[in-house]
């Protein structure tokens, strides 16, 4: 479940930051970026991104391991014949 939710959370939070950046350029006096809420959101975004990245790396390594195991199996089957 986490694997499916996290990318969406990352997209939503990133889009929020794009909006904050845009309106902060227009009116920085409103402090859309320099406030406590946005700083905490940034921390959440960072944690989500790190978790996402770790999950992607883990998946990638699993896939790679499986691919190698399959290739090895095929090689063994070839030599047995």
């Amino acid at each position, binding site marked *: 479940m986490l694997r499916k939710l996290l990318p969406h959370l990352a997209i939503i939070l990133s889009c929020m930051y794009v909006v904050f950046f845009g309106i902060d350029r227009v009116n920085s006096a409103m*402090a859309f970026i320099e406030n406590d809420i946005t700083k905490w959101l940034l921390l959440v975004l960072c944690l989500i991104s790190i978790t996402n990245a770790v999950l992607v790396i883990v998946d990638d390594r699993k896939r790679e391991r499986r691919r190698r195991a399959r290739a090895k199996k095929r090689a063994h089957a070839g030599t047995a014949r």
Partner: protein
Amino acid sequence: MKKRKKRRPWLSRQLRRRPRPVWVLILCDALLLGLGLVTFALFHHVLPRHEQSVGIVTTRESLMAARSQQVDVPRATDAPAMEAATIAPAAPEGAAGSGETAEPAPTETPDPDAPKRSVHTTENIGWFGNRFPDKFTDGEVIITDDSYKSSHVNITLQRHKKPGLAFYVADIYIKDIISLKTVFAEDTFSRGLRESVVSMNKRVGGIIAINGDFYGCRADGFVMRNGELYRKDTRTKRDVGVLYWDGTMETFSPSKFDIDDAIAKGACQIWNFGPRLLDENGEAMTKFNSDVWGLNPRTALGYYEPGHYCFVVVDGRTDKSKGMELKDLSKLMHTLGCVRAYNMDGGNTSVMVVGGKAVNNQSGKGRITSDAIVIVDN
């Protein structure tokens, strides 16, 4: 007995189903993004969050004491000197509410043993009665559509309207600095609390009012109102406008502003929105410390000399008036003869209120704000 299979939660079941079409995913993410932004706005600038005041208070009396001069006076002249030392404007009604104390000016006890003694001579700080004697009446109040003249206040409102631009200039003379006061929404220092300038003006019995710097939408910077320092956060990157108890006004870039110095010099109002509109020599500027560029509704406070100020409000974002750029506003303030000018919050917030209603056409439906600058008749 048949073992019943445990049912997964709804969200888990949804996520384990076949992948949804892409447009459904995009729509869901967009809706959640909107929800996130609304929640952010709710906590960022809608829900009130009370703040604690720094607690530093400056009063006119403390400034008088600080500015008093030690002069040697022969013993024979002690009595007249004492009388002169205690001359000060009577504390007007409502001074307590503006953060001032009604303590008398400091005096000294005569020392009979000393051949000469030192006395404090005090000046009437923030009292401009002698500066513009012809501007005030002897007690009667003369009110017309565009002017107000009394024993303490003289206001003339000019409405300038030409194709594509409308702005309003209120030329203001005050006899006493406490006639220019600032008001918080619901009389409370808080982020998120808002009130219309009309309502704030009505509550304090103001003659004319403009919106302030909307301190309530930020957590940083400086907020000083009627002598009390409420917020002291040096992280600010915005220009600072300071009005002192002696009636002078100064504007600073954030790097050159020293809060301790301003307090020592007797600051009574500090705004932190900006930018400043005139340079140190009172000349118009072309570059500003602000991101709010383009044609917009504007509000500005102008300073000519102690006791003489102006409120300027420019209409904008309508067919009748597009608004002004900062450089145009700077030129206008210079043309009016101001030597210092400071830009307050603009856009939908920009408003000038006279006699319980807005004089200008607020853009959009207007915006309630967290503070106002009001002229009251003592």
